């Protein structure tokens, strides 16, 4: 409820009226100056607030002072409308240059993430988890209406009995945990089975990554079959 939260440390309020909003209270305009009523006895903030809330205000409708106060507010709203009309429409805003700049920075930032083994036990080939996960998600999304979300891939300790030599990463087959959304049209058991099948196939043919298990969780049932991304 406190109005003066905004006058906390490090928060310089230089705007008009702000310095007068010292005390706390139940309404937004509780300093003496702001409480000074209109000649009819009503306070400006309450007249404006009633109008904004759309509540019926018989006094204001009949009172010349309140009417005047509301006219100034209405005039402001008209000017605001005119200002909005001069803005370009949101869909006309060209953000492509901005998108490009953001992605330049993002691609430059290497995220810490797992590095997973590719190929056989004795090879020295690897793939970062984010890249492997994209292949996995894309494989799941070859099924109509299926959308993939979280995908975590790791070498599970129960799948490998070798411990990595010092300074090297552990090798072994990976386990995949994948979350998908599927449309109502799918039988849940069937969709999980199909996703598993496609994922195993892609891991073998596109990556060459050995996989022991694919856990598929269906997180959501969607209604539209054409649940493709726009």
């Amino acid at each position, binding site marked *: 409820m406190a109005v003066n939260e905004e006058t906390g440390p490090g928060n310089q309020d230089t705007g008009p009226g702000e310095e007068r909003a010292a005390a706390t209270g139940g309404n937004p305009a509780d300093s003496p100056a702001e409480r000074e009523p209109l000649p009819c006895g009503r306070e400006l903030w309450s007249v404006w607030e009633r109008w904004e809330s759309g509540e019926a205000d018989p006094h204001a409708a009949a009172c010349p002072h309140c009417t005047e106060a509301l006219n100034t507010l209405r005039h402001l709203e008209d000017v605001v409308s005119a200002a909005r009309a001069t803005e370009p429409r949101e869909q006309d805003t060209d953000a492509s240059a901005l998108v490009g*700049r953001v992605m*330049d*920075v993002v*691609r*430059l*930032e*290497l*995220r*810490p993430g797992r*590095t997973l083994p*590719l*190929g056989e036990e004795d*090879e*020295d*080939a*690897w*793939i*970062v988890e*984010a*890249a492997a996960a*994209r*292949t996995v998600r894309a494989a799941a999304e070859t099924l109509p209406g299926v959308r993939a979300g979280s995908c975590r891939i790791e070498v599970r300790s129960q799948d490998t009995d070798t411990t990595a030599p010092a300074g090297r990463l552990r090798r072994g087959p990976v386990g995949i945990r994948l979350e998908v959304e599927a449309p109502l049209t799918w039988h849940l058991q069937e969709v999980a089975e199909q996703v598993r099948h496609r994922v195993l196939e892609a891991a073998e*043919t*596109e*990556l*060459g*990554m050995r996989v022991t298990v694919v856990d598929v969780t269906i997180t959501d049932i969607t209604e539209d079959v054409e649940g493709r991304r726009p």
Partner: protein
Amino acid sequence: MTEQLASGDLTDAVARAVLGTAGVAFLRPGVAQLLRASRALARVRPMGDRLGRPPRSSGVRVTRGEGAEQWHVEVYVVLHRGHRAVDVTREVRAAVTAAVRAEAGMRDPRVSVTVTGLV
């Protein structure tokens, strides 16, 4: 462990061998390269990659541990989709091994290949 960094010539020869392998799109770009590529990034502070590697690390690193005979070549590549990733890493390893032999006369370097992306 004190590491010895290979000469720029050897590193360049390795990089050429990697880039000449079918299925390789590009080496993982170093920050310096990206900065050059994008003027808009000039005000972005170059950051290390949080794994402790220096900010200039790019796609190829050739080192030899102190007293060790064997060179270690680390390659970080982005591959084209449509190629089987593990097969490309095998061809990269063969090309790098050949390049190290030709350039430095050394046999059997340890070659680690990491796929950092698919495009």
